[in-house]
């Protein structure tokens, strides 16, 4: 089955991102396809590469990036939600005249159309949120 995944909450405060990760990993293990993981609302904060969680805790951003790399899964941050919250890749940072970017490898910035497209392409779109 083809799954699309929407993550609406940031890392560590809510379980949504953890649950979405475990769901995605389990689906891939079972031979299903993940069309796309789309991060919206505070979910865009999952894409930071500057998080420094304690060593005995999970690294949520790195874990997503690894899953994406190993399985060729798209991790997309909504551009409008990301800009509001200061999640910038190098291009966006330059365009906005900011002195730094903070996006983790494996994540990309794109538009909300990618969420609608995931809904169209996938057999099931699963929403993880509050």
């Amino acid at each position, binding site marked *: 089955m083809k799954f699309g995944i929407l993550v*609406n909450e940031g890392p560590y405060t809510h379980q949504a991102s953890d649950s979405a990760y475990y769901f995605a990993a389990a689906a891939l293990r079972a031979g299903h396809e993940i069309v796309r993981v789309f991060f*919206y609302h505070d979910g865009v904060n999952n894409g930071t590469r500057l998080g420094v969680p304690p060593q005995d805790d999970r690294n949520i951003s790195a874990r997503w990036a690894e899953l994406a790399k190993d399985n060729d899964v798209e991790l997309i941050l909504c551009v409008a939600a990301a800009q509001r919250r200061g999640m910038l890749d190098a291009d966006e940072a330059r365009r906005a005249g900011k002195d730094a970017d903070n996006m983790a490898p494996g994540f990309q910035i794109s*538009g909300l159309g990618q*969420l*609608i*497209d995931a*809904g*169209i392409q996938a057999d099931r779109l699963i*929403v993880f*949120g509050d």
Partner: protein
Amino acid sequence: MASKRFLYINRKAPHGTVYALESLEVVLIGAAFEQDVSLAFIDDGVYQLMRNQDTTAIGSKNFSPTYKALGDYDVSKIYVEQESLETRGLSKDDLMPLTYEDEDDDWAEKDSIHIVSGAELAEIIEQQDVILNF
């Protein structure tokens, strides 16, 4: 590309969290994809459609006039749960009028808002392909 039935379920008050505003942004972007779109408002989500909203005192953007543009985006199926209104002491008269022009009926202006019971809404949910909960 075959069209799918998209339902956006709005469950939160318009202010206090960003969910309502960012949900509306998805609806407007999604309208360009020519899918079959419905909106549902339940729980505190019914407050999103209150008429005469004024956000001056809280300093956040009053985006409520944007709902009136939904008809122009071919979003004309807006379901508001009766029980959620009643629980909050509200009725349809407290909501802003939302209309669309029906191209199959000589562009007659029609009401987009349908007040439905929770049971009716459950049937509507059952008919959807994609449900986005905000």
